[in-house]
């Protein structure tokens, strides 16, 4: 049994036939977009079954304002340390009431990573023990990594770089 991207994809589709929306392999890393409601089940299965993804490398958010149904996303990087294989999971959700299951019960380290994602994108994590903002000021009142907040004052005209790239 070769422990490859294909093998993992098959194992997950066999266990959860409905959940994988799309899969790709950018730069060799298996990337699965899965249904939001199945996230915790899938990660739990990946962690505790023979797939052995026992290490949560990273959680981060992303914002795509141009796709309303999939406006906010959370991206998980999981790592099987024994076979040394990484998998990227993605879930997407609309902007209103963005909420996804918390992974703190599975990985203690998910705690601050989820707080950071909440802080930057306002995505709530259901079941998180202590979901507060972490890096920004608690009184900030908005989630600064969302694309509608430009880095610089949008009313400035002297720095209009419409001619140069993005």
């Amino acid at each position: 049994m070769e422990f490859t991207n294909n093998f993992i994809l098959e194992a997950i589709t066999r266990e959860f036939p409905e959940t994988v929306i799309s899969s790709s392999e950018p730069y060799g890393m298996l990337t699965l977009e899965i249904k939001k409601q199945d996230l915790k089940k899938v990660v739990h299965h990946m962690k505790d079954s023979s797939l052995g993804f026992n290490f949560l490398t990273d959680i981060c958010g992303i914002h795509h304002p141009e796709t309303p149904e999939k406006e906010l996303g959370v991206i998980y990087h999981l790592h099987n340390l024994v076979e040394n294989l990484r998998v990227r999971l993605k879930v997407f959700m609309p902007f209103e009431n963005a909420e996804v299951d918390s992974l703190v019960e599975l990985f203690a380290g998910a705690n601050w990573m989820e707080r950071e994602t909440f802080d930057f994108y306002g995505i709530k994590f259901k079941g998180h023990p202590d979901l507060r903002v972490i890096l920004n000021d608690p009184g900030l009142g908005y989630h600064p990594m969302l694309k509608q907040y430009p880095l610089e004052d949008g009313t400035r005209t002297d720095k209009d770089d419409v001619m140069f790239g993005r």
Partner: protein
Amino acid sequence: MKDNALSNILTQYETKEQIDGQLYTLNLGPTHPATHGIFQNILTMDGEKILHSEQTVGYIHRAFEKISERRNFTQITTLTDRMNYCSSPINNIGWHMTVEKLLGVEVPKRVQYMRVIMMELARIADHLVCNAVTGVDTGALTGFTYMFQDREKIYDMYEQVCGARLTTNMGRIGGFERDFTPKFHELVRDFLKTFPARFKEFGDLLERNRIFMDRTIGAGSISAERALSYGFTGPNLRAAGVDYDVRVASPYSSYEDFDFNIPVGTSGDTYDRFMVRQSEIWESLKIIQQAMDRLPDGPFHADVPEFYLPEKADVYTKMEALIYHFKIVMGETEVPKGEVYHAVEGGNGELGFYLVSDGGRSPYRLHFRRPCFIYYQAYPEMITGSVISDAVVTLSSLNVIAGELDA
């Protein structure tokens, strides 16, 4: 055992008045000599015993991820400097390699070896700071003053390579801005000759020192299972007994060419973390020696003019260089769309860069996987039930760098 101690303590308090009378709150930080950076620990104490602790971080949050969405790829290097400022070259080079992975740029063998040398020098500097400071926090200032002289020599080498000492902004996408100078070779040769004896002296001061061992053995220990659950990487994970090292697990920049060991500990306590870092410095020295001996000839940067920022003198005198400079800075070059995750073994563990590109001049999304941020959340669990002096040495041996914590 520590949990039992805690519950025993808590059952002694029957009324709130009793709790109010006996417990007190201590602020360790935000600016406190023992935190070595700006972050706050609010400790609930009974006498010297820590019953509960809570962390406040973000005092130097500078929104690097947001800023990155407006800057072009070369300008982001300066942001990575300021994360783990004890080993800036690793951050810089890790970022360059992420972009090269996105662009599909192959760098020459010489560049890879040069990068290995710089990254291992940075690792030595990083570990020296951590271990010397662990010594200071146990009351041994002498080793600190010795080792900071050697760290100074490493900074002199940085200066030869990139002109800066702390926030190095080292290298370019595709290689280095200039080749190693003869002076650099001289400095490295000198360092490799004199440092081992001095470092051994430092080790002799602390490694088998009864006082140091009593202070650190068993202080702030964590099991391998909990460490993995908390997402520990780097020396702190290896001290708990898990031999995960990005340099070996997924070799980058020709690390597979070198012969070195991955030291591991057993109990994950402060002493093991100290010893793992000590051993890693010896291994880094081995790697530098091998890389210097076998440093291949060839160009010091990849031949990719559309991504490699040209030399400034050429920009002023040559047409092509001026065009490429303009195109790179203004984002007129074709950058592939895609997403890439690249990890390097930083001073504190797996330093990851998750880059999403939409083909524009700056990243659509850039996320830094910062090892400090992830493992610092385990700190309450490691110190609850122990005494304040253990908490201080635990903090210094975890090597929490505020810049990396907050990004």
